[in-house]
């Protein structure tokens, strides 16, 4: 097995992720006070657990290098990008643009992630969900959101 294919190995990748996260958590915990075993500070358990995580990460990584667990399947970037993009639209626009336009836009972006979605049905779906969101969440459940936000001249 070549070195390049090792990089796609499931154990190598997940081991690397665990180790990286372990190192990150260790770094974050080091500036916290450790305290003693008798009176543990806020850093005691985080340091212990993150070093343990680093250990397990290295173990998984080594197992991958030595034995191999098979390569990871490709990630469908189109679906991933569309869904995550839609979530970010919601996060950054819902206050400013209001629920209606935000839902409309995010549904259109989400639909880009599907090879089966067609333009006109997607627009109808987006409009329908925008109206439904108003009915269910603002009118029905009384969430403190406006339908049209300040960016678009709403309240």
């Amino acid at each position: 097995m070549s070195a390049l294919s090792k990089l796609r190995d499931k154990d190598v990748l997940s081991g690397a992720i665990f180790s990286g996260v372990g190192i990150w958590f260790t770094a974050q915990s080091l500036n916290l006070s450790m305290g003693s075993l008798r009176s543990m500070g806020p850093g005691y358990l985080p340091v212990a657990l993150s070093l343990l995580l680093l250990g397990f990460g290295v173990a998984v990584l080594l197992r991958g290098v030595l034995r191999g667990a098979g390569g990871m399947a490709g990630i469908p970037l189109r679906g991933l990008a569309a869904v995550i993009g839609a979530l970010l639209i919601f996060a950054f626009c819902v206050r400013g643009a209001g629920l209606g336009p935000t839902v409309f836009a995010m549904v259109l972006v989400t639909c880009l992630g599907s090879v089966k979605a067609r333009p006109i049905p997607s627009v109808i779906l987006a409009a329908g969900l925008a109206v439904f969101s108003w009915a269910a969440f603002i009118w029905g459940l009384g969430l403190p959101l406006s339908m049209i936000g300040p960016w678009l001249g709403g309240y």
Partner: protein
Amino acid sequence: MSIDLFANLSVGLSAAFSLDNLFYCFAGVLLGTLIGVLPGIGTVATIAMLLPVTFGLPPVGALIMLSGIYYGAQYGGSTTAILINLPGESSSVVTAVDGYQMARNGRAGVALATAAIGSFFAGTVATILLALFAPPLAAVALTFGPAEYTSLMVLGLFASIALASGSLLKAFAMMLMGLLLGLGGQDIYTGAQRFTLNMIELIDGYEFIAIVMGMFGIAEVIRNLEDESSRSVLSTKIKNLFPSRADLREMAAPVLRGTALGSILGILPGGGAMLSSFASYALEKKLSRKPETFGKGALAGVAGPESANNAGAQTSFIPMLTLGIPSNPVMALMIGALIIQGITPGPNVVTEQPVLFWGLIVSMWLGNLMLVVLNLPLVGIWVKLLSVPYHFLFPAIVVFCSVGVFSVNNASFDVTLMAVFAVIGYVLVKLDCEPAPLLLGFVVGPMLEENIRRAMLVSRGDPMIFIERPISAALLIIAAIAIAAVTLPAIRKGREQAFKEE
């Protein structure tokens, strides 16, 4: 004792039969089935998505509705499994095997009815078990000190790792990540900020609902977008819903065995619905006089697992309600919901919140009854729902998840957090890392730390306290045995086999 039980049950009856709670129970079962029947949405995602609906309700109503959603979603998942061979969740994977074959043989109605009858019977038995065993267990738990609690949580975490499918090392690492994430936010004793990256939004810790919805709801959507090849819905009309006398006789024993098996496995941490249904399927196949029919539409292959997963689902409430320890991701969500309602989960719930506790128990039985009454006549509607194409469905899921996560704290930041965890969850699943141990770790993390710190204060820094106390030592020994057992080659093979049985 028995007089107590009846007094308690009458408290529960009057709580569950109040008009409001009857409505919440009904709404929960209906909504749960409605969402659960949609292909590609599992139980955890269904509950997480509908959780915000319950925020405005009083605690009793909220919990009744959530548990209604839980068994509704589970039943909905079985319907999907039987009719289109697309199990919405792991616990109905085995139902799909024989249920779908029965449907292809024109016995879809009988398969659905068998699932409903089995679930109802199992639910009834498990509810009685819950009423009988939860209060004494809570009384025992009340005597626990911090050392016993620490060991109990270690046992819970280890057992859920031992029972998870896939690599032990990875499950451990996932649990550790969950524990660490759970410790994020302000330290309760010193006010020190941990893992907050100096962001105000993270001072109260990472939002649990955002993590759950990211890792289970959104990650699932992305996974479904990988392969959009069309599913074949059985378009045949569902007729002869009612099983014949011979069918009833054939399902009786599997239902009984499934109920017993599920009730026991459900109490175990990490057990719950999925393990129960797998174990029951394996057992029925072994005991059957005609094992060759399994996989080709055996009635026992539907009756056993469906009873087992419902029994397991109900009895997994026992550790959650009495110890405050979640045994599976759904129970972790329930604990999250209790905390949002201002109730600290633990042994005090039984005595301090009798209306909540007993009302929930009675409503569980009612909810199961409603499921049967609701599902058999409405099955036509569910079939229609199944034919909604996924590319119309998933934008709606993304919208509902966003609004749901936003509404927990009215924070846009939580939606960003959900997006981050969706990517993390998706990548980890692609790398064969199960997300469940991470969730359990996240919920248990703060409790575990608090109890370890208190135990160390009590013992003046002597870690021997965990071994010197008999109950604590016993719990740790069981935890060690659980891990040792699954690493033994013989059992490991059996475990791999049990999870491969599809």
